[in-house]
C-alpha cells in the first residue's frame, strides 16, 4: 500500500469529497428553489429574453446532483485505490466543474444586465404594461401584483408613468389616470382610499416608492444563490481536485 500515496492525503481527499457531496446536494436544492421562482419575477426576464439567471439555475440543478454522484464515485474509487477509477473520477469532476463555472458566470452576468440599473425594467414596463399581447398580459399581471402587494408604483417612482411615452399612456388619458390605479393606496380590503387624491398624487393616497427595489432584491437573491454559492463550492472543489490529481500521480 505504500505506493498508493500517504493515508493522510487519502483521508483529506475523502473528507473533501464528502463536503463537496453535501454542498452539491445543497446547491441542487437551492437551484430548484430558484427555478421555482417564488418571487414570481420570471416575466421581467422572460420578456426581454435575458432569462439566463434561470438558465444558470437549471445548469446548477444538474451540476449539484452531478457533484453528489461523482463524489460518491470518487470516494469509492479512492478507497479501493483503483487507478482507472480515479482517472475516470478526475475526468468527470473536471467536466462538472466546467459546467458549474459556466452556470455561475452566466447567472451573474445576466443579473447585471437586468438589475444593475433600473432602465431595462423601466423600459419594459413602459413598452409592455397593458399591451394587448401575450407578453403584455403576463407582464401586466406581474406588475399589478407587485404594486398591490409591495405597495409600490412604477419602477423608481410613480413619475415613471408620467414622464415617458408608454402603451399605458396611449390607452388611458392622463387626466383620468396619470398612473395605474394599482398605484393608489388601498385599505385592508384593497379598496382605493381616495381616488381623487391618488390622481393628484397626494402623498397619503399614492404609493410613492418604486417597485425596482423589490425586483432587484428578488433577482439578486436568485443570482446570489446560484452564483456565489456555486462559486464557494468551486473554490472548495479546486484544492480537493488538485490534491486528487497529485494523489493520482503517486498511486
Amino acid at each position, binding site marked *: 500500500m505504500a505506493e498508493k500515496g500517504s493515508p493522510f492525503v487519502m483521508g483529506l481527499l475523502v473528507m473533501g469529497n464528502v463536503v463537496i457531496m453535501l454542498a452539491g446536494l445543497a446547491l441542487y436544492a437551492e437551484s430548484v428553489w430558484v427555478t421555482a421562482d417564488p418571487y414570481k419575477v420570471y416575466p421581467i426576464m422572460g420578456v426581454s429574453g435575458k432569462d439566463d439567471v434561470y438558465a444558470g439555475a437549471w445548469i446548477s440543478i444538474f451540476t449539484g446532483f452531478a457533484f453528489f454522484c461523482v463524489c460518491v464515485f470518487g470516494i469509492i474509487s479512492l478507497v*479501493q*485505490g*483503483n*487507478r*482507472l*477509477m480515479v482517472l475516470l473520477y*478526475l*475526468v468527470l469532476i*473536471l467536466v462538472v*466543474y*466546467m459546467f458549474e*463555472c459556466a452556470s*455561475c*458566470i452566466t447567472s*451573474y*452576468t445576466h443579473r*447585471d*444586465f437586468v438589475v*444593475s*440599473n433600473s*432602465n*431595462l425594467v*423601466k*423600459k419594459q414596463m*413602459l413598452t409592455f404594461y397593458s399591451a394587448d399581447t401575450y407578453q403584455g398580459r403576463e407582464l401586466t399581471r406581474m406588475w399589478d401584483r407587485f404594486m398591490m402587494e409591495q405597495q409600490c408604483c412604477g419602477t423608481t417612482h*410613480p*413619475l415613471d408613468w*408620467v*414622464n*415617458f*411615452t*408608454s402603451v399605458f399612456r396611449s390607452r388611458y*388619458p*392622463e*387626466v*383620468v389616470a396619470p398612473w395605474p390605479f394599482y398605484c393608489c393606496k388601498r385599505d385592508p380590503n384593497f379598496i382605493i*382610499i*381616495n381616488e*381623487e*387624491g391618488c390622481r*393628484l*398624487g*397626494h*402623498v*397619503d*393616497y*399614492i404609493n*410613492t416608492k418604486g417597485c425596482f427595489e423589490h425586483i432587484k432584491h428578488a433577482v439578486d437573491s436568485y443570482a446570489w444563490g446560484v*452564483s*456565489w454559492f456555486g*462559486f464557494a463550492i*468551486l*473554490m472548495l472543489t*479546486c484544492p480537493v*481536485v*488538485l490534491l486528487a*490529481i*497529485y494523489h*493520482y*500521480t503517486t498511486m
Partner: protein
Amino acid sequence: MTRGLETEPYEGRLRDLGMFSLRKRRLEEVQAVTERREGSDSCRQQRIGLETMGLNYRREVSRQCCNQEKSTHIGIPKSNRARISDDTLRPQIANPKFATNNPTLTTVTLEKPFCEFDGSMLKGASYEVYLYVMVDSAMTSSSSLMDTDDKALRATFQQTSGGQLGAYKAASFDVPNCMSPPKLSDAADVAKAPAVLAQYLIRVGDDSACLYDPNFLEACNPPLSEDTSYRFKFVLVDKTSGAMKDQTLWSDPIKTNKLKQSSSIDTWPGRRSGGMIVITSVLSVLMSVLVAAFLTAALLAVLAWGRDYHLDGVSSKRRLFSDGYPSLKGIQERLPMQLGVNPKLSNMLTQDEHKKPLSPTPGY
C-alpha cells in the same frame, strides 16, 4: 461710466451720484414687507395660521389686512411697493405635498385664492371666482378680461382655440372661505380628504369629457396641451350682475410636462459589477489551473508508462492501470490460451467464418 468715479466701489459711486445705496434700498424693502406683515395682530395671526396649514401663499396676509396698511407705507419708493404686490398676488401652483405630479402633461393644479378678495367683497352681495387660462405666448395680445359693458369675459376653450388667441374661462367656484382655510394635516384623514382637496385645489384641465358633450353648458375645463406655458388668473365676479369686481395678476408662466420617448431609455448596463468580474476571472483561473494540472498528471503518467514499458512490459501496464482488475495486456495474454484450451470453440469460430459468405447456418 462717469469720469472720476472709476476707483470708487459700486455703492460708493451710487452714493456720490445721489442714489440710494443698494444696501439701504434693500433694507427699505425688507422693512416695507415686515411692516405690512406685522401690521396688526389679527393680521399676523391669520398669516401664521395660513402658513402652519401648509398653504403656499407667499403673499403676507389677506388683502383686507394689506389694504389697511398700504396707506401706512411712508418713504418707500413707489416702484418698490408695486413690485412687492406683484410678487404677492398671483395664482400659485399647489403645494407639492398635495400634488406630487404637478404640473402634469395636460393639467396644472393651482391653489384656490384664499383671502385674496376679502377686501373687495361687500357684505350681502354674493360672489364667485372665475379662473382664466391663457397660453403664455398669447400674452402679447390684449389680456383684458372685461367685455364692453364691464362684465367678465365668457370666452370658452373652443373660442380661443385652447387659450392661444386669448384667455378663456376654465372654471368658476365659490369664493374660498378665508376664515376657515383647510388644514394640510386633515388631508391625511380619509373622511375629510375629499373636502379638503376640493376646498384647497383647483385642477386646470380636469375634465376630459366636456368638449365632446353637447349637453355641457358650463365653462368647460378640458385638458391643456403638453409642453406649453400657461398663465392663470383668478377674477372675482358679482354673481348677480356678472360684473368683475377684482382680479389677481396673471401668474408666472407654468409649463406643462413633455413626454420623453420610452424608446430613448438606454438599457445598457454600463460598468460590470465587481461580483461578476470576480466570479468570472477567479473561476477562469481556477479552471485553467485544474486543466493544466490534470494534463500534466496525465502526461507524467503516460511518460512513466512509456519508460516502464521499455524496461518490462507487463508491470508497467499494471502501473498505468490498476492491479485489482485484469489489465488489457493480461486479457490479451490469456485469450489465445483459452482458445487453445477449447479447440472446439476455435474450430467453430473458424468454420463460422468460412461458412458465413455462403449461407448462414440455420439454428446456429
